């Protein structure tokens, strides 16, 4: 894996990637954003990411399937699930399948930065996360 933290954001709503990428950039990671799960999975097959942030509910391939495919290919990758349709059952399913964390929309970019910083720590990166600024 690269020296800089590699992060992929997948959400079929373009606004999510557009908003989250600059917010996570502040942590000093290299970010790629995708709206199409198939294209994201193709990219994941080519390149190993440290962290994948994925929406749960998407057409054709859902976030739980993405989670399984990512972990099958790269067990070290930390997958963070985001969703506007959170339920206890989906949250438990995500964790049972190996998700690093699960967060319900709406959330602030600061909320996600905090989780990404924790995930980064778990893969051996120390990011400059300022809880006060978040």
């Amino acid at each position, binding site marked *: 894996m690269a020296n800089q933290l590699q992060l992929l954001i997948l959400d079929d709503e373009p606004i999510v990637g557009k908003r989250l990428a600059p917010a996570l950039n502040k942590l000093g990671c290299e970010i790629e954003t995708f709206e199409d799960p198939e294209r994201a999975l193709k990219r994941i097959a080519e390149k190993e990411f440290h962290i994948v942030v994925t929406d749960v509910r998407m057409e054709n391939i859902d976030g739980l399937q993405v989670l399984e495919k990512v972990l099958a290919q790269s067990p070290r990758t930390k997958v963070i699930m985001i969703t506007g349709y959170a*339920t*206890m059952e989906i949250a438990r*399913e995500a*964790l*049972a399948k*190996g*998700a690093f*964390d699960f967060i*319900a929309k709406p959330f602030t970019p600061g909320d996600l930065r905090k989780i990404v910083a924790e995930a980064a720590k778990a893969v051996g990166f120390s990011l400059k996360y300022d809880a006060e600024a978040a």
Partner: protein
Amino acid sequence: MAVIIISSNSLPKAAQIAAETAKALNYRCLGRELLREVGEKYGVSEERLHKTLDELPSLLGVNAKAHALYLAYIEEAVLAKLSQDRVVCHGLAAHLYVRGVSHAFKVRVLADPSELIRSIMREKDLSPEKAAKDAKHEEALRSRWSLDDYRVDEAAPSLYDLIIDLSRMVPEEARMAPGEAVRIIMETSSHPKFKPMTYSVKAVNDMELASRVRVALLEHFPDVIVQADGAAVVVETTAVPREKGKKVEAIEKLVRSVPGVGHVEVHVANDIIRQAAESFR
């Protein structure tokens, strides 16, 4: 913070298994002793708080208004602990109001019926027949209590992640000693799906804030429904049109005084019953 909630048709059995589980996991064990703290905070006798958890509201016991208020006090105290600690909780009805929290692992322990009857015989000095009748009566009472207060029968299996029937434990000694039940609880609760996550921790924090707001409102506004999302609080209530503005103002003022509240919304529906009653005067 990880949470295990144990409910049982035998309060002593739940307490015993909860204590052993907490000890084995190095968690805090939270049971009826919390009622002393609640009583001191709100100036209510411990006995009345016990009655609230054990009995239906009545004219000679705890009346309906006090019953609802005391339950709100208990919920507030329990949720405050659950949001701060790794806890094994029992005897405080948490299985009924801690809902939708993925890291709250709920266990129902069914006591061995013969042991249950023996313990009632000892405790109340009853014959086997009367003790069996008493056990049945107590079970029906618990169902009614939970249905009245939380609209769910606490005996419903769907409420729990794990049900342990002690009468089916093998070897037979395991029916009496908590060791095997504790082992099963520890093993099952360690599954990754019961780990705390941002979503579930927020759910507990939201419930905790909502419970504090309810306590602040209930004495003056017993009909309120409160929900919290982060620092935003939504209060639902009813009023006749001429009182709506005053009620909203009073509720907003009380809610804003609760630490942690950032935004308040009060939704008022027409109190049709009062309106109809007043129109006949």
